[in-house]
């Protein structure tokens, strides 16, 4: 066992670096950061940023050949690697955004903010590879606890504290139910790592009786509560709008992109590996008989995207609208998991990359505008097209991309997802997805109408000036939204290359 541990450590450097970044950044904050005259937290922020960059530079050296580390605790494979790149890239962007955010600068102890971002990222990196029920639980919990703290960071704001408290209550309940489900699964199979559980279920040793299938189904649904809460799938989404609205906007963006991606990573690994039976042809997964978990996911996908889109229509706060839109997007992405093909997985991976650019861009513009005009209400966006042309064009591009209209990147993402769904003969699911995209156009169009076709409420047409940094960042996010809409070959091949999940 000792040799296994020592052999595992060299492959574990990115994760170790991230955990060190967290611990050492605390020391940096207390020893140097506190002595700064203006408490902007810049020292700690830069330190954490450096930690992120070192970690992402180490990733290419983590050999992506599928294998296990520390016994059966942790899998390394191209699938996990893809998510690690995505999560770290999001983290770097979020740290840079946070350094510009006026909302955060008002807070005391802003240095610690970056430390908790590092802790949360460490948890998410573990979520991408955890292959043992104990690790799955611990990784989810590291992410949850860090995000509780981060979402309540603007303590002076009432809504931020409320968001944090709601998040804690929902999070506690969800992990409790998930643990119960895991204990049932352990009781039935006597194993904790997902490979042994799979072996037990496949050989039928552990589950000889009819009644046990019901118990297994219950335990799967209970575990799904924990995952569903992380990806904010309906009906486990109740925390999402309040937390997204109340949390500092950079945290909201991090939760909407990285935390959701990590949740999907762990969910796909758990379901695909635990109930794996065989591969038919190339890249067509077959689950064990009697475990039609993908039907459960299909139902979840349908209600998630429908509810997310329909409720978003009534939202007047842009942050809240983006929250419901991100619930809807979780529904679209879930469709890729339902079909159980490599094509579906690669479509999901691609969608995550595109979602990264369009969603982070939208959140960034909303943050920049809120910093200037102090509001996220849709009525305050009236006439924005004339007052701040570049930023408005940016927001339009991101929202059109989120709708999934050509020629932007969002269209390619949706098109890949829908074609994977149709290929697997889930035509009804694809039709519901297309109807939902149409609904989403309605509420995004409300923003365009306010920006371009309406006069400001108080008749204030003075231009809003943004710093060059904001303009440059906005343009940096517009560019990939256009490029990936027209030239997506490399992205497709990288996603297809990353579908390999470790199987024993």
């Amino acid at each position, binding site marked *: *066992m*000792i040799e296994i*541990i020592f052999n595992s450590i060299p492959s574990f450097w990115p994760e170790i670096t991230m*955990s060190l970044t*967290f*611990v050492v950044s*605390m020391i940096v904050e207390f020893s140097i950061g506190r002595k700064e005259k203006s408490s902007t937290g810049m020292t700690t922020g830069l330190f954490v940023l450096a930690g992120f960059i070192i970690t992402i530079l180490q990733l290419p050296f983590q050999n992506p050949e599928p294998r296990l*580390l*520390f*016994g059966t*605790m*942790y899998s390394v494979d191209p699938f996990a690697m893809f998510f690690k790149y995505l999560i770290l890239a999001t983290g770097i962007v979020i740290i840079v955004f946070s350094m510009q955010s006026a909302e955060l*600068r*008002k*807070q*005391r*102890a802003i240095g*610690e903010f970056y*430390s*908790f971002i590092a*802790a949360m990222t*460490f948890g998410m990196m*573990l979520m991408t590879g955890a292959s*043992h029920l*104990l*690790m799955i639980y*611990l*990784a989810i*919990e*590291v992410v949850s*606890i*860090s995000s*509780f*703290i981060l979402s*309540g960071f603007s*303590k*002076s704001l009432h809504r931020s504290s409320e968001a*944090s408290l709601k998040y804690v209550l929902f999070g506690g309940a969800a992990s409790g139910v998930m643990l119960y489900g895991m204990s*049932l699964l352990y*009781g*039935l*199979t*006597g194993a904790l790592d997902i490979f042994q559980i799979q072996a037990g279920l496949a050989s039928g040793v*552990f*589950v*000889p*009786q009819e*009644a*046990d299938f*019901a*118990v297994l189904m*219950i335990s799967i649904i209970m575990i799904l509560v924990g995952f569903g809460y992380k990806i904010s799938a309906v009906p486990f989404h109740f925390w999402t709008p309040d937390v997204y609205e109340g949390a500092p906007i950079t945290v909201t963006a991090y939760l909407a992109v990285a935390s959701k991606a990590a949740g999907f990573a762990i969910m796909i690994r758990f379901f695909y590996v635990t109930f794996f039976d065989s591969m038919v042809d190339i890249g067509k997964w077959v689950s064990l008989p009697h475990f039609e978990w993908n039907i459960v996911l299909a139902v979840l996908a349908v209600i998630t995207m429908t509810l997310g889109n329909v409720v978003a229509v009534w939202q007047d706060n842009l942050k809240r609208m983006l929250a419901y839109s991100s619930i809807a997007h979780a529904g679209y992405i879930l469709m890729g998991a339902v079909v159980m093909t490599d094509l579906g997985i690669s479509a999901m991976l691609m969608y995550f990359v595109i979602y990264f650019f369009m969603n982070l861009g939208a959140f960034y513009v909303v943050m920049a505008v809120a910093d200037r005009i102090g509001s996220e209400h849709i009525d305050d966006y009236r006439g924005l097209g004339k007052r701040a042309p570049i930023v408005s064009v940016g927001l339009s591009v991101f929202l059109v991309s989120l709708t999934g209209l050509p020629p932007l990147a969002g269209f390619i993402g949706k098109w890949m997802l829908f074609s994977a769904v149709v290929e697997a003969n889930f035509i009804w699911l694809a039709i519901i997805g297309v109807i939902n995209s149409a609904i989403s156009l309605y509420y995004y169009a409300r923003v365009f109408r306010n920006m371009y076709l309406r006069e400001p409420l108080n008749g204030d047409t003075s231009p809003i000036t943004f710093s060059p940094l904001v303009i440059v960042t906005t343009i940096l996010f517009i560019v990939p939204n256009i490029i990936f809409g027209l030239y997506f070959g490399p992205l497709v091949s990288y996603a297809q290359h990353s579908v390999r999940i470790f199987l024993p």
Partner: protein
Amino acid sequence: MELTILFYVFAALTIIPAFVVVFSRSLIYAAFSLLFTFLGVAGLYVLLSADFIAVAQIMVYIGGIMILLVFGVMLTKQATDVEISTGIMKTLPALIVVGFALGTLIMVLTGASWTQIGTIPQIEGTALELGELLMTTFVLPFEVAGILLLVAVMGAALIARKPKEVQS
């Protein structure tokens, strides 16, 4: 036979105070009843030959968390005579949900064929073996749990601190 009787004693010690925790209108009563629930659970652990976990349960829950809870209740203003709002609201939906959950769990517990991992071997305490396992097979979860606790402690300190006056 004696063990069976002991089991029922500890089970009663766990469940009856738990009812008091839920239904009591006084925070103090609820907090002190919780003490007995924790004790009962520790007894159940002993019956399962999990001596280390039983001791940890007593030290952590009764020694630490419980004392904190009682102090917290006592130091909170007027906590002794505050009526906690366990008012009767939406009884019917609650009953349906709780009944359904209870029925499901009973069906699960009685219906499933649980895996037997053999009889419990007679060992002199579990602390040594647990320590070995935590440092070998379970070293990664052990370390991650350390990080998790650090995050929780730092976060609690951060939340409890007084907010800064907002800069103009």
